[in-house]
């Protein structure tokens, strides 16, 4: 058993890009690439308000996040599951605006008060790290 700190430390090896899976009320899955950043014990991402993932999360707040894989990280996988809060009020968007590690302005010229983007705050309740597809070991964390 590893700690959430271990998961967070490992996840940064894969870079800021991850694939977030959500499901609609009818059980239709969706997966999309997003830029992510840790904010305390949560994973943050900044996405369009009218995106499929936001629509899905309004009816099913669960998400699974898989960080990008590649040869540089020996095909290791880091997967996080959690419940998601949609952050869409001006004050909260303003407080998170500079927490993503990149400039959000090119993606949302209207700034933090624009309603066309929201933050997703994923609060992990379990995580799994697979070393070399799991063939070289697996490490788990649960809240």
């Amino acid at each position: 058993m590893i700690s959430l700190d271990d998961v967070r430390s490992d996840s940064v090896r894969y870079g800021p890009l991850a694939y977030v899976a959500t499901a609609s009320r009818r059980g239709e899955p969706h997966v999309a690439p997003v830029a992510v950043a840790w904010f305390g014990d949560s994973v943050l991402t900044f996405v369009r308000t009218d995106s499929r993932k936001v629509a899905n999360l309004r009816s099913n707040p669960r998400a699974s996040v898989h960080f990008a894989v590649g040869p540089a990280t020996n095909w290791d996988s880091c997967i996080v599951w959690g419940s998601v809060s949609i952050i869409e009020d001006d004050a909260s968007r303003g407080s998170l605006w500079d927490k993503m590690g990149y400039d959000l302005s090119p993606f949302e010229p209207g700034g933090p008060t624009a309603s066309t983007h929201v933050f997703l705050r994923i609060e992990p309740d379990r995580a799994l790290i697979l070393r070399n597809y799991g063939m070289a070991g697996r490490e788990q964390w649960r809240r």
Partner: protein
Amino acid sequence: MPGKAVTLTTVKEFASTLSVWAHLATVGSDGEPDVVPVHPCWEDDALWVMVGIDSVKTRNVSVNNRVAMHWQVTENGDGVEVWGRATVLADLETKRRLWDGVFDYDLNAFAPGGPDNSPDTAFMRIDVDRAVILRMYGAAGIERWTRS
């Protein structure tokens, strides 16, 4: 978001220019989404993925056969997402047929027993219903295909 209509052949050709890796999303009986990396290969208009017989994705599609898959994006954000219906097959005839000639990597590296001695290994067939090509995360164009 609207997008130009394309053929499945165009989707397959574009996907072949991307990473060999894709992220496969399934949904459990409790509505929990799951996403894992896979190395899919096309056989005509179907996608095949080698899977563990006891894996979460195999269990999930046994109760909900809907899947979504997103190829790992390029540095400039080009990608493909497909949606479809999955079926897991573990019969010997299918395994022997797929083992050589369909996949572009050596399956023996993951299942050294080969098709005849790999009881923990199966194959997931994905029949694609719709697809979207996203150039630069969609900022440089979106193309769509839907099964008619």
